[in-house]
């Protein structure tokens, strides 16, 4: 039985082999024993290839003197020289920095404050406010940006209304500050989720201990809970910064009219142009990546030994909220105002706008009410096609992505440590790649790789790009549930005589069903919302809702944009609420 001693095969698939087969030739035997391992490594390497595939053509193109579809190219730094000599690139880099900084500051601050208030203070209507505050997560940033633009933009309804009636002028949102504010507000719920889960991980006894030592409730919150949130704070800053660099909707809708360019719009403009300078675009993409890497490195060195912040929980105890009395009502009211201003009113306005041919505070609404916008969208094949495409990409792509995630979770957590580290490392690579860069990279890869022609101009290429982009999120959602399962349940099947695949089929799949549904729905909603990566990849027959909305907006058709937004909301909101309202 020495064959079972092979440490590379903890799964022991060999135990199922009929005795007769073991008597085969020695080399054949060793290959058969290795099969599960080979399968695992193949899957892991395929994942790696998939997730880095957008990067390689970009890196290659950035240092190449000819467009990638031409042969006989040679290495050069000319692209970077052109890039760094471009004054618009300079301006875009500086603008990106300020934009990301403002967005990060606002998102982190608001998210942090919201988490402290909603998770730890006893205020009236806490749960309702929580759902309201989280709602921007359900809605695509693109849609919110449209809504804000129509309401608070320089020619927006509220802006004109306030100026005409009250003589108050709103600050111009078509500026770096305004863009940063909007990007920050869209990202604030993400920051909130970060901090709230961090707060939930701090055992309540740490606070009770401070209380017993003599600290008042609020003082315990400030001296114990707050410092323990430092790692989350830094991580959240990092995440927000990367998200801001990656942000396309707000810079496109608010930056373009004011001729403010950031790196993402710089890339977008040059990437979608018909006469694209491939070398320049690739060089800019690489610079963008480098910026993100620097932020990540900075975060790591700032944090030091994370165990200083790791808490070990005892038994879970019901966590008391800090009582506030009358102040609680004031905080609740402030909170409600914030959510109404940022989400409630803009969304309501967007819905109203979709039923109007034109909107201005100077014209009574009943005279402009119409269903034309919806008729236009639903009466035009290309628009309907984009809705159908989006649904296909989100459903089929989401399902395939979920299966891939599941397979890789098994590869990662039921194998050797080496393989696990490799998969974990690989799975999070796309976190550091902006959506636009994924789009450009996949587009180049399809040009460069043999057989790429077959998927160019199909929905498959969109699905691949979206999967790459959201794999880290899906993986992060599925794996905790998988880890919680514990290996012993599967081992019990093996001991009872079942094989590895049977143990997965009989135990893992049924027990993970709800986590897998959650993972699929997450992919579904994200794929539905995605537009940045799609901008470079869609063809005449493969437009998705996001790209159609951007085109309509460029043409100034605000009514149809609003109608399409409402259609999107109707299709995704129930699912999104289902995902986030579960807990």
């Amino acid at each position, binding site marked *: 039985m020495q064959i079972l001693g092979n440490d590379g095969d903890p799964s022991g698939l060999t135990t199922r082999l009929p005795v007769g087969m073991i008597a085969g030739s020695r080399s054949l035997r060793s290959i058969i024993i290795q099969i599960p391992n080979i399968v695992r490594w193949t899957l892991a390497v395929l994942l790696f290839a998939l997730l880095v595939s957008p990067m390689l053509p970009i890196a290659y193109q950035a240092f190449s003197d000819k467009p990638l579809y031409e042969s006989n190219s040679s290495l050069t730094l000319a692209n970077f020289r052109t890039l760094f000599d471009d004054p618009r690139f300079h301006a875009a880099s500086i603008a990106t920095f300020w934009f990301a900084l403002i967005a990060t500051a606002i998102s982190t601050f608001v998210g942090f404050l919201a988490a402290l208030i909603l998770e730890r203070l006893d205020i009236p209507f806490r749960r309702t406010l929580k759902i309201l505050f989280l709602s921007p997560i359900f809605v695509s940033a693109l849609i919110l940006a449209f809504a804000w633009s129509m309401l608070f933009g320089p020619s927006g309804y509220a802006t004109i209304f306030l100026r005409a009636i009250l003589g108050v002028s709103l600050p111009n949102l078509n500026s770096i500050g305004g863009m940063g504010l909007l990007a920050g507000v869209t990202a604030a719920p993400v920051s909130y989720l970060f901090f709230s889960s961090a707060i939930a991980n701090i055992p309540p*006894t*740490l606070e*009770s*201990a401070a209380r017993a030592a003599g*600290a008042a409730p609020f003082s315990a919150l400030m001296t114990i809970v707050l410092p323990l949130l430092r790692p989350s704070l830094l991580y959240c800053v990092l995440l927000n910064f990367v998200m801001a660099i990656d942000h396309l909707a707000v810079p496109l809708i608010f930056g373009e009219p004011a001729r403010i360019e950031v790196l993402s719009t710089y890339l977008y403009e040059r990437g979608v142009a018909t006469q694209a300078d491939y070398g320049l675009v690739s060089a800019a993409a690489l610079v963008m990546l480098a910026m993100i890497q620097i932020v990540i490195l900075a975060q790591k060195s700032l944090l030091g030994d994370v165990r*200083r912040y790791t808490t070990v929980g*005892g*038994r879970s105890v019901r966590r008391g909220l800090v009582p506030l009395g009358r102040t609680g009502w004031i905080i609740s009211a402030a909170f409600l105002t914030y959510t109404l201003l940022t989400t409630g009113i803009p969304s309501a306005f967007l819905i109203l706008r979709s039923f109007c041919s034109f909107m201005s505070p100077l014209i009574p609404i009943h005279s402009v009410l119409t269903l034309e916008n919806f008729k236009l969208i639903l009466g035009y094949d290309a628009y309907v096609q984009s809705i159908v495409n989006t649904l296909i990409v989100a459903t089929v792509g989401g399902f395939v992505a979920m299966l891939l995630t599941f397979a890789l979770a098994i590869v990662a957590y039921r194998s050797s440590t080496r393989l696990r580290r490799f998969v974990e490392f690989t799975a999070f690579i796309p976190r550091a790649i902006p959506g636009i860069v994924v789009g450009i990279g996949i587009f180049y890869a399809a040009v460069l790789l043999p057989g790429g022609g077959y998927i160019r101009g199909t929905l498959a290429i969109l699905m691949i790009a979206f999967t790459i982009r959201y794999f880290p999120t899906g993986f992060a959602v599925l794996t905790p549930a998988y880890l919680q399962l514990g290996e012993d349940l599967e081992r019990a099947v093996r001991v009872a005589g079942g094989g590895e695949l049977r143990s997965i089929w009989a135990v893992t799949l049924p027990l993970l069903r709800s986590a897998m549904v959650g993972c699929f729905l997450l992919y579904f909603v994200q794929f539905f919302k995605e537009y940045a990566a799609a901008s470079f990849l869609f063809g005449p027959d493969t437009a998705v809702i996001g790209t159609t909305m951007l085109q309509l907006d460029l043409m100034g058709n605000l009514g149809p944009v609003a109608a399409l937004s409402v259609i999107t909301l109707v299709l995704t909101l129930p699912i999104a609420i289902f995902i986030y309202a579960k807990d």
Partner: protein
Amino acid sequence: MQSAVTLVGIAKSYGNLKVLGDINLIVRDGSFTSLLGPSGCGKTTLLNIIGGLDRPTGGEVHLGPDLVYSERQQVSLPTERRNIGFVFQSYALWPHLTVLENVSYPLKIRRLGRSERERRAREMLEKLELGVLADRYPFQLSGGQQQRVAIARSIVYRPRILLLDEPLSNLDAQLRERARAWLKNIHETFGLTTILVTHDQTEALSLSDQVVLLSQGRIEQVGTASEIYDRPETAYAAEFVGGANIIRGRAADAGSAMVTEAGIRISVRQKNPLLAGGAMCVAIRPQKIKLIDDIADNFVHGAVLPFAVTTVLYHGSVYEILGRTQVGELRVLTDRAPEATNTNILLPTEDCISVKP
């Protein structure tokens, strides 16, 4: 002696679920009291109520001369104003602070100057032989060290009582024995009124002046360690502390003996007139039961029963023997293995204690 803690009619329920009912208890100043009971008996809830981490649904809590909780008078002093020390089962050391910072935190809250609080914190650490650990973070400490730092943190400001929630349960067996002696030492050195929650009877018996045995949210018995062990009042107390055998029956001879359903008569050490005429149990410690191979050898007064051995477990110093008798299954601890499967046992009257069922 003054009382440090007085509980009057403490009750606690979550909706319809009654966790504690009518608890009355006095903890004397400077004493070491254990709240002993199995998990779910309400002992931690009671400790939290004394500490102010949980609110009862009825009754009064006095700490020394102060009323800190009263349902009737609408008094509820929060934890931080009770001046108590609390050690949590998980120790709850703040991971982002060093040992020294952890210990000086309560002094900081009490607005002591920087140098003064550092001096007092260091002094406390020295006393508990933790001086060398001052600049470490909690994650760099062993379990035993964490437990001692947690105690240092909770007594550095001289609280009026020290509340300990199973502080030894996270230590391994060997360490626990040493920590027990250390804890007793601390109590004697500082003279602090201490209340310990534990499910470990050895811990309660070896440490406490007063043991409060709890069962299903009620006080089963209160007494010194030897009272609880030697004179259990109920079958539950005798069984939970020291694992006595319980034989059920009815009182006979005005409470000086018991007769089982099978008609076996067992005389008890002390007449218990309170139980006369009603149901009664006899408790006998397994090590007090004697195996006798020949009835003629017997010079001790007591009941003799035939004993059919079912299981023999060798523990090293003793044999644990389980067997069937006419009064049910009994557990016997002896220093020798039984010679035959069917033998006799003697229940010495001197060791048969009458208890309430």
